[in-house]
């Protein structure tokens, strides 16, 4: 009887511990409102050409045009996607305002602004 009671107490204790642990994790999990914004490359334009995002958001460019493009920092090309074939995508998480362009077709330009 005592052994059975001990088992019951042990099971109850473990269950409570596990539940508490789960609850803790849920409460401690960072609440993320990060969003992935999409920029479509089509008709020799970045659409939208100007985008305002929150810190932590990501931006994904999708090449839906008929020729190869890229996404490069304007004007220094300090970062870039490399050549994006038709249908390919490039994703990044900006940490500051950026101006970018297509270095293959330099009159195609875009901006990302941080809120």
């Amino acid at each position: 009887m005592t052994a059975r009671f001990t088992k019951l107490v042990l099971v109850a204790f473990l269950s409570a511990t596990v539940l508490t642990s789960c609850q803790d994790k849920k409460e401690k999990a960072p609440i993320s409102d990060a969003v992935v914004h999409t920029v479509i490359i089509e008709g020799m334009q970045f659409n939208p050409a100007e985008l305002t995002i929150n810190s932590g958001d990501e931006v994904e460019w999708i090449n839906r045009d008929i020729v190869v493009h890229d996404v490069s920092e304007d004007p220094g090309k300090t970062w870039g996607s490399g050549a994006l074939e038709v249908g390919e995508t490039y994703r990044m998480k900006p940490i500051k305002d950026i101006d970018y362009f297509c270095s293959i077709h330099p009159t195609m330009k875009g901006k990302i602004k941080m809120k």
Partner: protein
Amino acid sequence: MYSRTFFRKWPLGIFLLIFLFTVTGWAQNDVPQLNDAQIAHIAVIANQIDVDYGKVALTKTKDAEVLQFAEVMIRDHEAIIAQATALATKLGVTPEDNDVSKSLMEQQKTMVATLKNAKKDDFAKLYIDNEVAYHQAVVDAVKGLLIPQTQNAELKSTLEKVVPLLEHHLEMAVQAQRKITQ
């Protein structure tokens, strides 16, 4: 002698006049009537011609900007040719030779010879001036002649998608022209 000098100085003007008067026939109010197979052929030939000009540029100039421009022209126009060919295959259309594409090829031969024979110092300006004139003429022809006469919706849509690219090439060529002229 006079005609040689004139032709050396004014190949672009002649090209443009021939294109506008005999190819589009707009000045004579005699617009050629084209079917989709002929339009597909013209689209492929017109793109191939600019690839050909770009390939001459790669052998004739060391100007980094002109070389980069030529490489973009070759890559973009080859991509369009591939798409036009794939579309024609999908639609079961065999591109059909016609008077417009024949005329374009004749002009290509003349211009390629002119570019190949140009002095190296003169080449960049000659090539870029031709790119401005050629893209302007092609934009006008695609918008004013080919798109209005195209019957197949998919072919028409492809031509419409090419227009922003051609206009962008024209803008790039005009900017390059300004730099060379300065």
